[in-house]
């Protein structure tokens, strides 16, 4: 690993914007916040995976993975980040390094040619080149190749130096964001700016969630100038430095980027979420408040409050019909971070009982909010082993599990309804109406008549009442006229059937 990368990792882990980090002692801060992975008991993606997740939603960019097959081949086309325009980002592009490439040291040359081919074939706004374990190990300098390629063909080629072995998905998110800060943001100027320009960082527009929120922003006249990276264009990212305010959606991974935008370009940021009704309102208030501080007219706040009042009332009215269908049902929530408390409060409002919520990836702030909402921390837990969760669900410890795909089959095999609330999901649950969609999904899962059938006993679960003995067969079959006496073949079958009279060819009407 290059010194540059080592320094970069040390630097992203020393994050003053991160509450967890600032609370640490000087010594433990130096060791960074990456957890040592346990061989044989690790789960989750690598740094490369994280960078890809962070950057791939930039839709008009070609994402080229410099690696042997597995990195791109096993992972392309597996997320539902939506695009309103270009489809370039959906292509699975890799240099597919072979044994010969590696042994002969042809990696850099192949990469250079690959970049050329990609530009020729797809005319992308930019090419993002991802280094991986093998290309890092053989010492390919993707930075130099990208520089040469940018100079030669005029399309920006951005190196993203994230070999998987450096750490987890979270670190990859950070390193991906760093690449944007170093090479993209601030390289282009918007034609016009308005006092209503914002950045949204950390939303990937999965299944179109950004679009569930965008109508609200549209009505307030707020423009998404920079997006990292939901439905983003390359130019939008390059112009992000001209926004007035940054909203940080997935705080853990991207806080460094938001802080740097504030330090270098003076753009204030706040952490917020679009999951749940109260959170959506809070987020809108914060956006408008900060915009006004940065010079937007004060009447924005009034318009914002009017919108919130209208939308909240609409959402609550839309939720009400579901109340009798979900009231009193027990939910187990197994997600990470900010999703926990905002969704918890909305579900509890509908009379659902939250029997547990995981606090993986959650900040101190998140914890406080959960305690505030649920009264104490007895329902918070860190991790739950699949077997433990299976036992709990099977023993009817909860009526429905809300989680990511990883625990999907734990619930289903325990015959417990499951609703996908993680990033790989195919439904959008953001904003006011997203909450309605989520409750609708919970209702559909919970109240499907299938569950009762599935849980009912199998025919052999109860003993037979009487040891009835079948009578011996009698008579003959009404169709074949074969008598019920084994061993004797009826005369009709012993001889060949007679051929019907008439011509052998006259059965076809022609």
């Amino acid at each position: 690993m290059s010194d540059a990368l080592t320094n970069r990792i040390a630097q992203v882990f020393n994050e003053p914007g991160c509450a967890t980090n600032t609370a640490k002692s000087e010594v433990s801060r130096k060791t960074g916040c990456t957890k040592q992975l346990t061989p044989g008991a690790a789960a989750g993606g690598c740094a490369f995976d994280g960078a890809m997740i962070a950057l791939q939603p930039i839709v008009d960019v070609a994402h080229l993975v410099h690696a042997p097959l597995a990195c791109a081949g096993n992972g392309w086309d597996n997320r539902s980040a939506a695009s309103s325009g270009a489809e370039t980002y959906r292509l699975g592009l890799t240099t597919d390094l072979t044994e010969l490439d590696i042994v002969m040291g042809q990696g850099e040359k192949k990469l250079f040619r690959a970049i050329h081919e990609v530009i020729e074939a797809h005319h992308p706004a930019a090419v993002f080149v991802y280094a991986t374990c093998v290309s890092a190990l053989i010492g390919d300098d993707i930075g130099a190749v990208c520089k040469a390629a940018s100079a030669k063909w005029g399309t920006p080629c951005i190196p993203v130096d994230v070999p998987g072995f450096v750490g987890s998905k979270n670190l990859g998110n950070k390193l991906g964001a760093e690449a944007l800060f170093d090479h993209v943001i601030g390289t282009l100027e918007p034609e016009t700016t308005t006092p209503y320009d914002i950045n949204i960082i950390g939303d990937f527009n999965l299944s179109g969630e950004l679009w569930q929120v965008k109508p609200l922003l549209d009505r307030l006249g707020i423009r998404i100038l920079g997006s990292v990276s939901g439905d983003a264009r390359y130019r939008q990212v390059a112009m992000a430095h001209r926004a007035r305010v940054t909203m940080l959606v997935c705080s853990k991974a991207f806080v460094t980027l938001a802080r740097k935008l504030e330090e270098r370009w003076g753009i204030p940021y706040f952490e917020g979420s679009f999951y749940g009704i109260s959170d959506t309102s809070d987020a809108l208030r914060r956006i408008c408040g900060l915009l006004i501080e940065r010079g937007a007219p004060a009447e924005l706040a009034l318009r914002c409050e009017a919108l919130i009042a209208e939308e909240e009332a609409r959402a609550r009215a839309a939720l009400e019909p579901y109340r009798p269908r979900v009231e009193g049902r027990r939910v187990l929530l197994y997600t990470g971070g900010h999703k926990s408390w905002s969704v918890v409060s909305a579900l509890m409002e509908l009379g659902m009982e939250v029997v547990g919520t995981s606090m993986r990836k959650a900040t101190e702030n998140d914890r406080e909010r959960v305690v505030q909402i649920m009264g104490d921390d007895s329902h918070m837990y860190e991790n739950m082993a699949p077997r433990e969760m299976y036992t709990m669900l099977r023993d009817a410890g909860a009526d429905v599990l809300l989680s990511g795909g990883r625990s999907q089959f734990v619930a289903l095999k325990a015959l417990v309804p499951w609703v996908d609330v993680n990033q790989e999901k195919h439904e959008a649950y953001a904003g006011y109406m997203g909450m309605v969609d989520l409750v609708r999904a919970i209702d559909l899962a919970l109240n499907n008549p299938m569950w009762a059938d599935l849980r009912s006993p199998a025919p052999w679960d109860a003993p037979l009442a009487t040891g009835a003995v079948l009578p011996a067969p009698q008579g003959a079959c009404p169709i074949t006229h074969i008598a019920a006496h084994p061993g004797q073949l009826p005369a009709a079958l012993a001889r060949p059937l007679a051929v019907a009279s008439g011509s052998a060819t006259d059965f076809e009407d022609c």
Partner: protein
Amino acid sequence: MARLVTARHAVSTNPLKSSAPLGAALAYLGIEGSVPLLHGAQGCTAFGMVHLVRHFKEAVPLQTTAMNEVTTILGGAEQIEEAIENIRKRAQPRFIGIASTALAETRGEDVAGELREILARRRDFDATRVVYAATPDFDGGLQDGWAKAVEAIVSALVPATQQRDPDLRQVTLLCGSHLTPAEIEELVRMVRAFGLEPLVLPDLSGSLDGHVSGNWSGTSLGGTPVDRIALAARSVCTLAIGEQMRGAARIIEDRAMVPAQVFPALTGLKPVDGFVRALMEMSGTPEPPPSIRRDRARLMDAMLDAHFFTGGLRVAIAADPDLMFGLGTALAAMGAEIVAAVTTSQHSPVIGQMPCETVILGDLGDFERAARVGDAQILITHSHGRHAAHALHLPLLRVGFPVFDRIGAQDACRLGYRGSRAFLYEIANAVQAIHHRPRPEDFGATPPPEEFSHVPHSAPC
């Protein structure tokens, strides 16, 4: 017949192949009570696991040695030992199958040697059989990884014998990576119909068939019992399904003198006839069971019904070599023309026998181009082919791995008399689903002049 051409480009657009370690992991999942372990960074496992889960819609136990930057430089033997220890603690597996990745192989680790040393030292691991296959991502695809894993399993677990002590009623069924759980079941049914008892290896039909089991396990559920693998030495014969299984069959032959027969494909009348003939000879059954006879008669009828649609049908197919060969030859035997064939690995003799002029070693980008040039009427490949299908407006038959945008991939059966019949129906129905009413323009004719056309008008009041 066919010539293999390697696509000449530096960038692979929309990969066709899945990686070799993934194939090895899948093979290991066909052993009962197993946990596959990939020796590499944790992402190698995470991507692979997501891939498997999307296809099978099942939780898949898959673990990683989680190599980091230190072990990447200094070597990962300790990671392997620690991983085995942790997996044993958490899941009590009877079998751990290790597959290396590009990361471990690029650094040039002697995993086999290290593992020998670990297992000799750690006698507390004895209750778990540990097998290792070298499967760098940069060489071959899923099929090659699968074959290497099965070779590693039989090398480690089938005992070398000096004397034959055959069980005349037992045959070993070595299943290639292209077989679905339903197809393994169909083969088992056929073998049993002749009074023979199959020893299936690896057996996904019990582990990844999709069932509710009533308890949760950190290992594979079902599959070939570890203790039974040694019995392959006593089988009367090894039946290798897929050319890729020839290597493993040879190893059993060398170690235990069990004669082997390889069936590269079992889709279509003639290939299945060959298989049935072999079963008849092996079991000494001059008359096949009535069910087999009836299934053959029904396949014949399906061929009669389907040939109207398959005759002259221009097919583009992209798959691992054995699957491509099996389905490609079956369609060619039905009069179809293979206008584009793309495959994932150069390591297979069946490529040369494909009923077409060239087979491209390439990706789905090549597939789309070749299908366009060849004016294909139907596409056959895995789910990622949806992009090509969308671009070319052609029906796509999803076969192989991964199939993630349809459910029930494990239940598709396209071999044996029954499966071939179903396959022909699938093809014929996909063709019929392309609805096209004849228009004069199709034939260069002009439509009747405008003046004859009735102009609708509302009734006068």
